[in-house]
């Protein structure tokens, strides 16, 4: 049984929703052995400190603010801004707090005359070359330099000479670099080196002429690059999409949750007049006003930051439409919903309730999910309700559901070992990958990679990695489980992995010796053929790993965990999303209700879907956009878009968070739960649904955590922090597997397909894969990864979707690349099942030998879902290079104008 618990509320670390609960900053001293602790004096107060801490860390824990620019809790210590100079007794000169380690009996004065004078001097130095153009600067109002110059600076400048000036480069489409304002704290450089992982930013030139920039004048290419905007304490790096659009103090801040992937990051939406201006990590109350915390460890990905404005797309439709004599005509919402009810009632009367399917967008809130399930089971009388259109086959979808039901792991417990199977996590659920990376980088936990594709983002932090061919992962996992249980030999596993026995023994020892661990399994594969075998194998491995371990299956779907827990799945009796088109074809489904067109969009290409949907007797679509699907609808119900919906959603680790409307729904559109309520009532159940979101939440709560009395308001980020956040925790041992009795009695649950946690594992040594690994000579096996910024129904509608779309590439193992004679940045023709496309090659160790990895954006023409059956892949090198984006910009090489 799930329970609602109050999160720990101590220190700054606890206020951080994810990332680094045990980060360096504010780490509580509870549980630290006594011999590690000692007392010191901070501003005349006796405080406890831990061995190895720096003065800055102690100050943070003790709520003593020491000004700083270069120091950041997530990044290495640079010590170059010199602003955190504090006085330490018995040291003749002021020393920097960020780097000096505390010692017993140390007497630190962070606000003494000496310290204050030194800080004032450093502020004067920083302002020597900083332009006085705050009115123009986009950082104005949330600038650390502005704030510090008021708090720690002098009121006048003695600088009478010419200031240093740089030519402005145009390097990145998303990040504006204005070097004149830079104070050289190098936070951005360290972020790209340490968190972004692409080492693309650097310091150029020397002395007072130095400046930050990107190598080759190229863009800041990593998927977290937008965070350098928040990290920048001055107006040097600003957001191009947001630049000059509004002043920050004019914007309304809504603490909500990102709806784009399963990481479920807490974000702040900044709106004005019903328009979303920007999305940032949660703003916090600091210095008497809410602002982005420059020391935030809550990094968000570029898709969440820049791609959240899809609801404002030109195709947005606020009103409802009703089909009258083959024409869709605008209608008031009430009329439209009545018409939808009538159409559905007719289908139910004529063909029975089972002929209706209700499909949900995977980003539907728990409230929408619950009401949709109730609408299906209780009102319409159908099993067919589903959210899993993104899974590539019925079997894969069932495997995902089964995995989510028994998953019991999360990163918050800081496991000693993280075993990643088939990771392409950075592209599915970027911030989850970032947090795994943090475990490796900051907390020095071990990361082990298995499977046929290894996430390049995490590979650099992996302690060890073992590749295998696609399709053999299940076998490897089963063998590993056998070795751990003492049933199989290390030698067999070593031969399966093609590695030495020593390597494999190290792997086994690492796993065995770990106190706690986490098995992270990516559930996405090329056409859904591997997951059905890999999920049971991983489940068996999880069982073999035993106590202290957890299993975290990863999909990119936003609310997969919640919708799965609420039973929004067809089970054995119903028809799921993946079987829908067939069922429509043979007449089993006569009516479809889609809550969000992204509930059906991934099922096939437009033509295929249009053909199927036009055969329906009734097609009720609740969506926010004009689309090919809206034109086919019997009734189109205008639904609230992103940031217009209230509700709750789970992230992939099972934490619940509030999705909060920041603006009113556009035009006549309604929130999804309201649409479902009205639809249920139009179908003749006057008591259906609820009249407020709070009421729906009460119903959701009753299902998920019956003994909880958490209100929605309690889930809200209170006062700009989520210190009082309530977390519906994932109970250990797969208890999230919702048993039928938790459902209110009047709903039919008897046939709902529920499988127990005990999977039947494939026998070690057998090869359950449906396709055999092949060598380069036989052509390649194809894997692909979904991308949070890839081409999708909603992603395409973001205002700068094209900029977020990653440069498409085909990743080839170095040995294969040598065999076929391709190099990184060379063009090649990729042949897949007779189709072909030109694509840039990237040579890397992500895929196993004999496998190629197709990034998002390449498979557009191929549409993996329509490529059932064996896939023939051939690569034909071209004598042409991918143009380097940097070269064109080299001409605009930035150099100081004056010395």
């Amino acid at each position, binding site marked *: 049984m799930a329970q609602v618990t109050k999160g720990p509320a101590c220190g700054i670390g606890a206020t951080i929703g994810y990332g680094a609960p045990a980060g360096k900053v504010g780490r509580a001293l509870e549980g630290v052995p006594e011999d590690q602790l000692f007392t010191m004096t901070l501003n005349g107060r006796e405080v406890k400190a831990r061995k190895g801490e720096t003065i800055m860390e102690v100050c943070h824990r003790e709520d003593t603010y020491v000004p700083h620019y270069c120091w950041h809790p997530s990044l290495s210590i640079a010590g170059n801004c010199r602003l955190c100079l504090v006085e330490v007794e018995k040291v003749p000169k002021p020393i920097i707090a960020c780097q000096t380690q505390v010692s017993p009996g140390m007497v630190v004065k962070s606000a003494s005359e000496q310290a204050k004078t030194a800080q004032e001097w450093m502020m004067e130095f920083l302002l020597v070359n900083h332009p006085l153009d705050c009115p123009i600067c986009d950082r104005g109002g949330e600038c650390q330099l502005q704030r510090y110059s008021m708090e720690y600076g002098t009121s006048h400048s003695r600088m009478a000479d010419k200031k240093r000036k740089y030519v402005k480069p145009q390097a990145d489409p998303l990040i504006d670099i204005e070097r004149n304002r830079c104070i050289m704290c190098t936070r951005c450089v360290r972020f790209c080196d340490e968190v972004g992982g692409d080492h693309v930013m650097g310091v150029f030139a020397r002395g007072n002429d130095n400046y930050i920039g990107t190598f080759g004048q190229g863009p800041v290419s990593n998927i977290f690059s937008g965070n350098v905007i928040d990290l920048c304490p001055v107006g040097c790096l600003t957001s191009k999409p947001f630049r*000059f659009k509004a*002043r920050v103090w004019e914007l309304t801040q809504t603490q909500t949750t990102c709806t784009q992937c399963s990481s479920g990051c807490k974000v702040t939406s900044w709106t004005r*007049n019903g328009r979303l201006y920007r999305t940032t990590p949660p703003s916090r109350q600091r210095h008497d006003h809410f602002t982005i915390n420059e020391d935030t460890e809550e990094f968000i990905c570029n898709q969440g930051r820049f791609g959240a404005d899809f609801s404002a797309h030109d195709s947005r439709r606020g009103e409802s439409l009703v089909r009258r004599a083959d024409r869709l005509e605008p209608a008031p919402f009430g009329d439209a919903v009545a018409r939808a009810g009538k159409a559905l009632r007719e289908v139910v009367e004529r063909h029975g309730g089972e002929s209706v399917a209700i499909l949900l967008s995977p980003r539907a809130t728990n409230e929408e999910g619950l009401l949709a399930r109730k609408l299906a089971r209780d009102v319409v009388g159908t099993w067919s309700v589903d959210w899993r259109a993104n899974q590539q086959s019925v079997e894969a979808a069932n495997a995902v559901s089964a995995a989510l039901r028994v998953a019991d792991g999360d990163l918050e417990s800081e496991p000693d070992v993280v075993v990643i199977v088939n990771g392409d996590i950075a592209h599915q659920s970027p911030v989850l990958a970032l947090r795994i990376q943090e475990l490796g980088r900051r907390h020095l936990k071990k990361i082990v990679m298995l499977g046929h594709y290894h996430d390049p983002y995490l590979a650099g932090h992996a302690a060890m990695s073992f590749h295998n061919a696609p399709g053999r992962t299940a076998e490897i996992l089963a063998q590993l489980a056998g070795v751990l249980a003492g049933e199989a030999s290390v030698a067999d596993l070593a031969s399966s992995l093609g590695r030495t026995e020593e390597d494999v023994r190290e792997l086994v020892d690492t796993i065995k010796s770990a106190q706690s661990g986490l098995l992270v399994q990516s559930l996405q594969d090329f056409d859904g053929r591997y997951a059905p075998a890999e999920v049971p194998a991983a489940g068996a491995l999880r069982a073999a790993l035993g106590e202290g371990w957890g299993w975290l299956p990863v999909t990119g779907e936003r609310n997969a965990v919640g919708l799965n827990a609420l039973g929004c799945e067809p089970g054995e009796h119903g028809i799921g999303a993946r079987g829908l088109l067939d069922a429509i074809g043979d007449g089993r489904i006569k009516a479809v209700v889609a809550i969000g067109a992204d509930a059906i969009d991934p099922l096939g290409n437009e033509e295929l879907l249009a053909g199927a949907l036009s055969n329906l007797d009734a097609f009720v679509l609740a969506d926010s956009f004009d689309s090919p699907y809206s034109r086919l609808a019997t009734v189109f119900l205008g639904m609230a878009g992103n940031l217009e919906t209230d509700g709750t959603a789970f992230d992939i680790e099972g934490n619940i968070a509030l999705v909060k409307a920041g603006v009113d729904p556009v035009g006549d559109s309604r929130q999804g739960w309201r649409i479902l309520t009205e639809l249920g009532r139009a179908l003749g159940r006057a008591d259906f649904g609820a009249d407020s979101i709070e009421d729906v939440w009460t119903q959701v709560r009753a299902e998920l955590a019956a003994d909880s009395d958490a209100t929605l308001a309690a889930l809200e980020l209170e006062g700009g922090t989520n210190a009082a956040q309530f977390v519906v925790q994932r109970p250990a041992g797969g208890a999230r597997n919702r048993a039928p009795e938790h459902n209110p009695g009047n709903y039919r649950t008897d046939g709902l397909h529920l499988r127990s946690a005990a999977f039947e594992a494939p026998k070690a040594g057998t090869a359950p894969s449906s396709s055999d690994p092949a060598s380069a000579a036989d052509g390649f096996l194809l894997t692909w990864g979904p991308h949070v910024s890839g081409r999708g129904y909603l992603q395409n509608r973001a205002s700068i979707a094209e900029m977020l779309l990653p440069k498409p590439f085909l990743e080839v193992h170095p040995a294969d690349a040598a065999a076929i004679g391709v190099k990184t940045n060379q063009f090649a023709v990729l042949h897949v099942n007779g189709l072909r496309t030109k694509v840039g090659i990237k040579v890397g160790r992500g895929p196993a030998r004999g496998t190629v990895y197709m990034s998002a954006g390449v498979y557009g023409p191929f549409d993996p879902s329509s490529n059932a059956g064996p896939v023939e892949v051939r690569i034909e090198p071209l004598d042409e290079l991918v143009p380097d984006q940097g070269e064109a910009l080299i001409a605009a090489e930035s150099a100081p104008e004056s010395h």
Partner: protein
Amino acid sequence: MILELVKGFGLAGRHVFDALFRGKMVTVSYPEVRREQPVFFRGRHRLQRYEDGLERCVGCALCAAVCPSEAIYLEAKENNPANRVSPGERFAEVYQIHLLRCIFCGFCEEACPEDAIVMGPTYELASDRRTDFVAQKHEMLDPREKGFGDYHVYDPYISHVTPESDKEAKADPWALTS
């Protein structure tokens, strides 16, 4: 009581006498005659330009921030170096002052770091069209061209209301929504 009455009438009579015969007239025959306003008079807002024609306003929104009646709305935009509007990086693309909300306190003038917004001598603000009370940027930048400047002469015989303008006024909601 008689004494007070005499005193009162005497005062009034003295002023009538002064006005009529001693040239101490305090009223003027507006609109034929207009009073000279002091330089610090806070009348209708004007946006200034540099001598080369570039706008002084950089769209920093400090006027909007300081405005106690929230009468100023603006949206800034990045300058195109080929076709500059203001010397700096940004300029005000939209600049509106809601004159019905404005209390003519002059804070905007004081807050302006570029001396772009000043309060002019114009005090003739009446109109019979609601949209007229939302002063747009071009009206404030070039008041003479637009008829809102120093030389604007009130003409009671020309009505601002035409059938077109009336319709437009009804169709166009207040530009200032906040």
